[in-house]
């Protein structure tokens, strides 16, 4: 008998790191891009520089994104990429949300 993914099981699959709305949105952007830079993410999420930095730092600590910084001064860019564990966690979290909606 297959186990239905709903209710408490789906709740268990919700990732506490990605669950925050801005982080989920950030992961969605990164999952659909090869790389994305700081200004693009900030504009899409509608957050301040410091808020975005904090959110992305949390995702980096969890091993879900990598952060690259190139250049110096005004020409410096910060670029984000999703990692393989990050993509797995994001897909699992999204599947859990869908399963919760179907209950």
């Amino acid at each position: 008998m297959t186990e239905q993914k709903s209710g408490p099981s789906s709740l268990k699959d919700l990732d506490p790191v990605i669950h925050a709305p801005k982080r989920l949105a950030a992961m969605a952007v990164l999952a659909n891009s090869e790389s994305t830079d700081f200004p693009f993410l900030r504009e899409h999420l509608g957050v301040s520089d410091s808020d975005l930095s904090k959110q992305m730092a949390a995702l980096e600590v969890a091993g879900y994104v990598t952060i690259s910084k190139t250049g110096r001064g005004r020409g410096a860019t910060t670029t984000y990429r999703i990692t393989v564990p990050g993509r797995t966690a994001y897909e699992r979290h999204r599947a859990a949300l869908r399963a919760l909606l179907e209950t």
Partner: protein
Amino acid sequence: MESETHDIEMPDREAVAAALREDERAAAAPWIRGTTPPAWYPVAGGLWFGAWAWVLTADQWWSSLLLLPLALLVGVYVRWFRRRRGTWTKWSGAPREIDRVLWLFVAIAAVLAVGGFVVENTLGRWPLIGWVTIGVTAGLALYEWSYARAARRVRERLG
């Protein structure tokens, strides 16, 4: 990797639906947000492909030396546009409206390739170069116009 202790409360249906809507909107963002290609891009693309056709069909020993600068030009443009746009989409996972336009791009490329073969074999080298230059310019212009329309439809659907 074992996840940390869960302290997520059971979200209500509305919160879950809202989260999924926002997820879909964010997933589409790399495809529909960001700077569009510059207006000169179709013409530049046409000229580049025309130059490529000229080099490949030239019967001169030095013409192949031009392949490297042509290839470098593409690298420079892609690097510049990626920085300008702020993101670079993956090859798959486009919203359905955009996916149709990507297939249009493939169809345009196929028509140009087949047409180029026919033109070269029936009319010769210079008509081929003209076909490639004008065809690619028109094809890119059509593709970009279609993409912009599709992006608008995605934005309207997702809000």
